[in-house]
């Protein structure tokens, strides 16, 4: 638990904020990739996180698999789920007005929440893993959030490799940059969309597994994660993956340090205020480009 020295407390809060920021930033990367490729805002993003969480929860309860190991399950499952959702539903609103994809994913979000509530009831679920903390001099950092941050960094590195060293990754970047031109050079936009949505949901579900190390969840927790992802994406600029990571860290640190002055429950309000301020000053986000 945090130490008493004020300097150490601030440093701890900063580091905690940084680590949470990395995790949520990576989650937001999934959302922003989907938007960049398909211009679809996935309102159900957080609900897919919860699906991953439940998968890990049941893996633990039924088979004793710890959440980190369950990543081997949730990542492929997430990708598959994303691909299927894209093929069945999202593909049809890609070329419709933005309004329609907002409503569609809103409907999906509602449906997921309703199904989870129906099958698993609103009880909070948690995986009882007590990992303790590591001491760094006068700072005390919990192990679980360190693992989460390490995972986030691993995902970020993997994505970087994917985007810059593989054909499909470059294809995704091309489509985000200019869809028409990408088609002109022979890239299959449908396949790129499929992969992007699959990756986005795979990221979301895997973050859901990691989340089980940090907190309890319920079927209604989805929108909280969606909201955090949205705020970050807005900060970083829609369709800008590195921006999402930066935005995540900024939000994480600001929210964490603000807990020194404000009741911790008020964090959504702080997120909103930050978002509005950024949007007023730079409507394209911190790292977005104009237009």
């Amino acid at each position: 638990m945090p130490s008493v020295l004020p300097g150490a407390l601030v440093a701890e809060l900063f580091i905690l904020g940084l680590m949470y920021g990395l995790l949520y930033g990576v989650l937001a990367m999934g959302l922003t990739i989907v938007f960049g490729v398909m211009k679809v805002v996935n309102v159900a993003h957080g609900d897919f996180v919860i699906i991953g969480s439940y998968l890990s929860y049941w893996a633990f309860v039924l088979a004793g698999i710890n959440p980190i190991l369950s990543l081997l399950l949730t990542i492929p499952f997430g990708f598959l789920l994303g691909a299927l959702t894209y093929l069945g539903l999202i593909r049809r609103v890609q070329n419709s007005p933005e309004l329609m994809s907002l409503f569609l994913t809103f409907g999906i979000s509602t449906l997921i929440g309703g199904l989870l509530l129906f099958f698993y009831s609103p009880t909070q679920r948690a995986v009882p893993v007590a990992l303790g903390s590591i001491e760094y001099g006068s700072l005390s950092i919990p192990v679980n959030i360190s693992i989460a941050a390490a995972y986030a960094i691993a995902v970020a590195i993997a994505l970087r490799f994917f985007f810059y060293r593989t054909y499909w990754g470059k294809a995704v970047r091309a489509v985000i940059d200019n869809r028409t031109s990408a088609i002109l050079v022979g890239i299959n936009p449908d396949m790129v969309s499929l992969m992007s949505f699959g990756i986005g949901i795979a990221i979301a579900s895997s973050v859901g597994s990691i989340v089980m190390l940090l907190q309890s969840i319920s079927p209604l927790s989805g929108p909280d994660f969606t909201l955090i992802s949205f705020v970050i994406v807005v900060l970083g600029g829609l369709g800008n993956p590195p921006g999402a990571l930066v935005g995540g860290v900024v939000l994480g640190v600001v929210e964490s340090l603000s807990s020194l002055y404000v009741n911790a429950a008020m964090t959504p309000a702080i997120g909103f205020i930050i978002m509005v301020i950024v949007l007023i000053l730079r409507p394209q986000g911190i790292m977005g480009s104009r237009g």
Partner: protein
Amino acid sequence: MLKGYLLVHKKNFVRDVVPWVGALVVLAFAPYFVSASLRSFLLFLLMWIALSQSFNIFTGLTGYVNFGFVAFYGLGGYGMTMTLLSLNIPIYAAMVIGGVISSLFAFAISWPTLRLRGAYFAIAMLSLAQALFVIFDNWNFVNSATGYTIPVKYYDPVLQYYYMLAVAAVTVLCLYVIMNSRLGLALKAIKQNEETAVSIGINATFYKAVAFGISAFFAGLAGGAATWTITIIDPPSAFDTTITLTAISMSMLGGLGTIAGPIIGAVILYSIEHYFGLTLPYLHLIVFGIIIIVVVLLIPQGIMGEIISRMKKSRRQEVGEEG
């Protein structure tokens, strides 16, 4: 001169007005010949008509999705309750004040939020509603998580019915007036292509703010009337995102941007919720989710929207054959 400002083109008075007046008369006399439970059903149906229509006034006419819609409902409810309990004024006055507070809030946030494009705006409004919930939950001035209870002396189920009927009627009437006014024309242009509308001199920010404020006012009125009927208000019930969800589902199913649409959507969905939702919990979430998905994929304009589209298409074909 006012008439010229309000009416863009002449309508057939009998065809357009009589059915609505007829329905209003039937609903006005309903408490005399229906059971208490049916009257209660009608009361909440009227509430959802009012809510989905006020949602329609902004989202249906401008195309901006207000995912934070419940904020207006909640603010109206709190406004009504707090002024009623502290100032001892007639209830209708408290309701109007609640509506005014809600629309003042809408005007206040309209500058930072309405300049945002579609997706950004939707996200901002969603997080606004969340922020309001969290703020009210921790704010002593509004009694934090405890909320308020309206004392028994104010309870009057028949009068509550008439107030809700009045709110619904006025909301629908206002929507009709707006749609046939220059404001409505400007909003239509903005909805089709905002950049073009601005380039021909339409002050988009102003017109959007007006629609936003009006939508908030009626949502606030409905919120006040609902709170009076339910007698309790607290942050989770006042800022419940399910309310936004339901208003969206009803408007979409019936047809955003039409007058009859949200009413039809409200009738269908509230009847389903009332008669089937009580048996299996959370089923209505699943049903609403599926309905929204199906509507978006198959009948994106909603029931009324599709009907109107087909009527226009067949009229065009008729004219084509003649000319």
